[in-house]
């Protein structure tokens, strides 16, 4: 069964001048952890707001938990949990007051659903009398998640829960999501961090309101059509420049410790030729190895392809 369905959803702003979401279709299975991966301005938040019945689409249709987002908006609201990208709890209420406020709104109590939020709430419970506005970023994020869960929703919408959060807290947050998935909750989560994509069961890569690809992360990686190499040398910025001016090279971009390179042609001695070319340019400490593409490599390739396509 599918818990979230979008069919050709379009949303424009400024009287049609900005196509924030452009005929987007995808679906999320019941109990699935589905990631919407893309940078700021990709249309992620608009999608979340349409699915949580806070914004109307220009065209297309969508259902959540089998209910129509326009016709059945009232029922949807009691069945979904939504954690917006911007911290939206009451800063001048305490941790506990915020939580009991949201529980009351949904005709329930903290006690009734404590088991669901417990693994997360115990981490902030020592600070339950502290005002929400005085919490650290990581603690705010945990409180917001508890508030979104307190009415035991069927579907959870998390809009960029890890943005601006350090690498350690990000990892902890994804561990919490894995725990919630065990409880059978359907989760749609968005993130601009490409490395988080592999923690989802399926992902949609999105850019400028359009879906670039939808699949399991491993499948997207396996579909990467070119052989990819990682290369490094003592002088990395000169290396990038020299690689880009080599006609053998199809694409080349910085990627952490290495530059990632693909070749115009696929015969085997491309590597050897390239190394010779770089040695002639006085590069030292050269190292080249074949690697598997990451989601970020895939995203860059799809983005460039989309960009090239739109110019014709």
């Amino acid at each position, binding site marked *: 069964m599918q818990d979230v369905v979008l069919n050709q959803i379009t949303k424009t702003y400024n009287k049609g001048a900005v196509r924030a979401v452009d005929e987007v279709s995808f679906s999320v299975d019941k109990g699935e952890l589905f990631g919407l991966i*893309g*940078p*700021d*301005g*990709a249309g992620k938040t608009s999608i979340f707001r349409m699915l949580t019945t806070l914004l109307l689409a220009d065209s297309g249709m969508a259902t959540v938990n089998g209910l129509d987002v326009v016709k059945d908006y009232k029922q949807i609201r009691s069945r979904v949990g939504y954690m917006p990208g911007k911290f939206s709890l009451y800063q001048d209420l305490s941790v506990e007051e915020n939580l009991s406020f949201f529980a009351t709104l949904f005709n329930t109590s903290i006690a009734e659903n404590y088991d669901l939020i417990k693994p997360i709430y115990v981490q902030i419970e020592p600070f339950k009398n502290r005002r929400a506005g005085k919490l*650290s*970023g*990581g*603690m705010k994020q945990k409180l917001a998640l508890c508030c979104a869960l307190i009415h035991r929703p069927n579907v959870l919408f998390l809009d*960029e829960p890890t*943005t*601006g*959060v*350090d*690498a*350690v*807290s990000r*990892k902890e947050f994804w561990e919490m999501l894995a725990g919630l998935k065990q409880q059978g909750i359907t989760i749609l989560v968005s993130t*601009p*961090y*490409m490395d988080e994509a592999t923690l989802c069961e399926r992902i949609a890569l999105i*850019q400028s309101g359009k879906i670039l690809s939808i699949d399991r992360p491993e499948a997207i990686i396996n579909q990467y059509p070119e052989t990819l190499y990682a290369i490094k040398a003592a002088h*990395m*910025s000169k290396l990038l420049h020299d690689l880009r001016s080599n006609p053998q090279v199809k694409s080349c*971009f*910085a*990627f*952490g*410790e290495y530059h990632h390179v693909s070749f115009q042609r696929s015969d085997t001695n491309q590597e050897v030729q390239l190394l010779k070319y770089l040695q002639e340019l006085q590069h030292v400490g050269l190292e080249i190895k074949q690697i598997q593409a990451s989601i*970020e490599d895939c*995203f*860059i390739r799809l*983005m*460039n392809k989309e960009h090239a396509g739109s110019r014709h």
Partner: protein
Amino acid sequence: MQEVVIKTDKLTKRFGDFIATNEITFEVYAGEIFGFLGANGAGKTTAMRMLCGLSKPSSGQATIAGYDIYKETESIKKHIGYMSQKFSLYEDLTVMENIRFFGGIYGLTNKQIKEKIKNLAEKLGLQDQMRKLVGSLPLGWKQKLAFSVAVIHEPRIVFLDEPTGGVDPVTRRQFWDLIYEAADNGITVFVTTHYMDEAEYCNRISMMVDGVIKALDTPANLKAHYGAASIDEVFFELARGAKRSAD
């Protein structure tokens, strides 16, 4: 001997009982790209505010571009650039107005500003956008423009506070091209980021945990020292024991 542009000695900032930045001592060299990493609440922002002359230290010493952090904050401000993800440009001014405004603030002459406008328009491919409001530009362009404006007065040092947050992977790399170019032109770059791959682009990085600099070296040396395959792993190793998580 390399020229030192940032030098701190036991620099400390207390807020009541809370020691946000605890006796940090380090040096940054001219033309270097220096990554200033740490978990949320580690004390990075507090340290950066002191280095920019915006916040008075509780104790310790520091000089920025040769100027004293207590007595010469106005001279410091003239010789540094600053850009953050949150505030950078005026959204309700056009691209050209922003350049003119910041150029004026930094004391550039009209002739210099005119030249800068022409150069930046070409370099960033913004020729057709000069009269558009900055608020209407895509985030990636805004960030590239904000960086160019932050170095418009050719400062000795530019401080970048999470400049690439939320930016798409292609633009993120173009942004780093601008950073490299600035460094090649002798501008020292002091940058914070949550993207661990970007830590690799720095000449040296420091890692702050609970107000203290726990490690400082080149990315390669740090990985070797901690027996880690990536900077990510080094970060986990160091930040895992953190007690604080304030913002």
